């Protein structure tokens, strides 16, 4: 365990198997009078991968930001590990965030740092007394996990889109999260790399027991990754089910997402 505060955090939340990893209750959010989230209800269980699909602007990324406290909902509650995040002070919110990994759409790698420094950054920030040898081992371990052990000394500007996503994933994995949020993990990648990333997400769930909430427009990724899929329409959940159930759906809104004939 590289992060000291995480030990306490685990005691406080997340030990009970009954508590969902993340939950949104009647979540509403609007921008300049435009309703983006409209009474959204959602729950992600333990060791579950939930995929969220919907048209662009349906409020998927806003939901992510509300869940991790980067945005305040206008009304409704967002819960992580059974805690209402709007009721937490900054310190407690950060303790909860230590259990959560967030892969941003553009990977959000720190430009001024090398790949190794990017990955080591959260470790060094959360444990000031950590030894350099421990940091090096942890960085190497996650780089091997994402299949890029040779990239440690490269600058983030030298990386391709797929490599950036993998390094972004490695940076979140190094803190051993219990719950991952993936914001369009395969967008902009070729079919082969997209499949590799999707399989990696699945592998993390199966081997590391990491639950996740995945936003994607890539139905191949949704099929590989999902235990359950939720379809978003105008800020609320229109349909929910497994890939097969939704694929067979006759709903006019749901059907086009699974239609591969065009």
């Amino acid at each position, binding site marked *: 365990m590289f992060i000291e505060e995480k030990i306490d955090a685990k005691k406080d939340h997340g030990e009970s198997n009954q508590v969902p990893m993340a939950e949104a209750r009647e979540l509403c959010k609007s921008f300049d009078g435009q309703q983006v989230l409209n009474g959204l209800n959602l729950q992600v269980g333990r060791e579950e991968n939930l995929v969220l699909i919907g048209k662009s602007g349906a409020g998927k990324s806003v939901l992510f930001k509300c869940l991790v406290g*980067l945005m305040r909902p206008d009304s409704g509650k967002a819960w992580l590990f059974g805690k209402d995040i709007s009721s937490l002070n900054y310190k407690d*919110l950060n303790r909860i*965030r230590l259990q959560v990994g967030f892969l941003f759409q*553009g990977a*959000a790698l*720190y*430009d001024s740092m090398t790949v190794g420094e990017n990955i080591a950054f*959260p470790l060094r920030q*959360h444990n000031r007394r950590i030894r350099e040898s421990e940091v090096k081992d942890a960085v190497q371990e996650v780089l091997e996990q994402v299949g890029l052990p040779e990239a440690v000394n490269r600058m983030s500007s030298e990386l391709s889109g797929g490599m950036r996503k993998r390094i972004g994933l490695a940076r*979140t994995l190094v803190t051993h999260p219990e719950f991952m949020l993936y914001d369009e993990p395969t967008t902009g990648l070729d079919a082969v790399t997209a499949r590799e990333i999707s399989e990696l997400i699945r592998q993390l769930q199966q081997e590391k027991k990491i639950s996740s909430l995945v936003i994607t427009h890539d139905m191949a990724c949704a099929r590989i990754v999902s235990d359950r899929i939720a379809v978003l329409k105008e800020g609320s959940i229109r349909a929910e089910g497994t890939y097969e159930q939704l694929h067979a759906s006759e709903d006019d809104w749901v059907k086009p997402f699974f239609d591969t004939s065009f």
Partner: protein
Amino acid sequence: MEKNSLMNQISVEKPRPSSIRNWFSQFGDFISFSGRFFKDCLRPPYNHGEFFRQCIETGYRSLPLVSLTGFIIGLVLTLQSRPSLATFGAESLLPGMVATSIIREIGPVITALICAGKIGSAMGAELGSMRVTEQIDAMEVSSINPYKYLVVTRVWAACLTVPALVVFTDAIGLCGSYVAMNVHSHVEARRFFSTALSVLDFRDIFPALIKSVVFGFFIGVIGCYRGYNAKSGTESVGRAANSAVVSASLAVFIVDLIAVQITDLF
């Protein structure tokens, strides 16, 4: 109290008010943003590595620019003032006059304006770019306080390096003045500098240094504020850098005006 601090960390979208209300709202945000520096600046954990990196960026890399500017200012001021003083036969007062002008006013203000352009725009653009590419959000969700890591280190660096650059500019400016004196006549270096420095006392040097620290604070905090609050889109990065320079330059003049009034009281 703690809940309030949480609200400060979360970006809260507000309805667009009218332009006057908007100005006051922004000003309030800026006061709150600056206030957080005093709350966080001495509280651990400390980011020494980032602080030293910023000192190199803001201080060391600005040395060539402020050196050249300081030298030219000293040279030009001496060449311009010499004929007027010569009319009254007061050429011997020239080193003292130039030293007082440079150390009390011109050195700090010119250096601060250069730093507002160089450091302020760099901070605005860098943090703006980090905001747009979600790097600041990435820090936030990793439970790392981005304000402490990015803003506190930069403002501290600006507060320390701007006065150091001012001292350096003053020294180079006096060298420029010495060179200008030797264009028309031969003056020994030792005599020039002893005459120039003999007219200075504590009341000339100390307020100028304090003023430089305040200049550094405002340049740092304005640059960071503009970048940290950049909106989405690459256009906003340019706007953040531009407004950082304009606001920081204006702040330098306002602080100078206030500092002169305060200095006059003593």
